[in-house]
């Protein structure tokens, strides 16, 4: 749940088409949790540097994956690459 919400937040904040994001207390809690999870790296710091390579990497790795759950794997690979990038 945390991953999904944060992934969504990150993606929204980085897309070319800017959409208004209403930050309520629940989202603030989620961001705080993730800051702890990734070892103190803030979501804003390096997020733009990690998003594009994580997307490119995920597409490269998942391009010929199994057709039973391709997109589910794509999302998981993206998250792994993104958090790895953010933590390094």
């Amino acid at each position: 749940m945390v991953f999904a919400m944060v992934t969504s937040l990150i993606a929204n904040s980085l897309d070319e088409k800017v959409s208004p994001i209403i930050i309520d207390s629940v989202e603030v809690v989620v961001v705080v949790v993730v800051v702890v999870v990734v070892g103190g790296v803030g979501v804003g710091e390096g997020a733009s540097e990690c998003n594009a390579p994580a997307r490119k990497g995920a597409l490269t790795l998942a391009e010929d994956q199994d057709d039973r759950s391709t997109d589910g794997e794509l999302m998981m690979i993206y998250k792994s690459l993104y958090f790895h990038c953010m933590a390094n």
Partner: protein
Amino acid sequence: MKLLKLCVIVAFFLNVTFSFSQTNFSGIVNYETSINERKMSDYVNVKRKKIKNKQLIKTLDKVFLNTKSIKSTLLFSNGEGLFHVDDKISIDEKDLAEKINRIFSGGSKIYYYNDSTKNYLIKDCESVGECLIYDNTLLEWELTQESKIINGYTSYKATRSKGKVIAWYTPVIPVNFGPKGEFGLPGLILELEVGKVIFNATKIVLNPKKQPKVEKPTNGKLVSKEEYNKIIQKAKENVFGKGN
């Protein structure tokens, strides 16, 4: 009289074979997954050269050149089966290559098969942050006569999805399941090439003393395959945009 004797013998063997394949037949199969060498070579010789981001090349190199295999298990008992990766992914795991290889091998998904009720399910608790249980549809296999010996069992090659997925199954073990949700072949899958990885059966125990416990996955939102695809597609569009 001779004909009657022959009929009795044939009936006996048919009965034994049927009993063997349908009831009180259980087993545990261990698999190990490694990066498919053909895919690795394709990456090194073609795809790597097209990537400009050096950090990304470093990351992908780690994944493709990873030599550590991932262990997984298939349990089956009386027409039901369950496949899962042995070690779960932890969020703080530092070895990225191992983590990606685990995702390729099935990640934390649970694959359930039931030949009696024709109920085949996948439980996915990671892709979108909530546990979803959805139908695992049968994908048509193309059988071939090509054969080889795997772990002492004569195995035959089958392919699906225009040859993208290759399975080697043995009719000697009459179980229609295999790793990572694959099913529908006339025998146990001992080797499976899917995506970037290969599953190899490393140990097969038939009719173990302690019968394996196969339980239908619960504690998740039941959705159809179409609903699951919609949910995943929505999450995917948030990250990758439309059209990917």
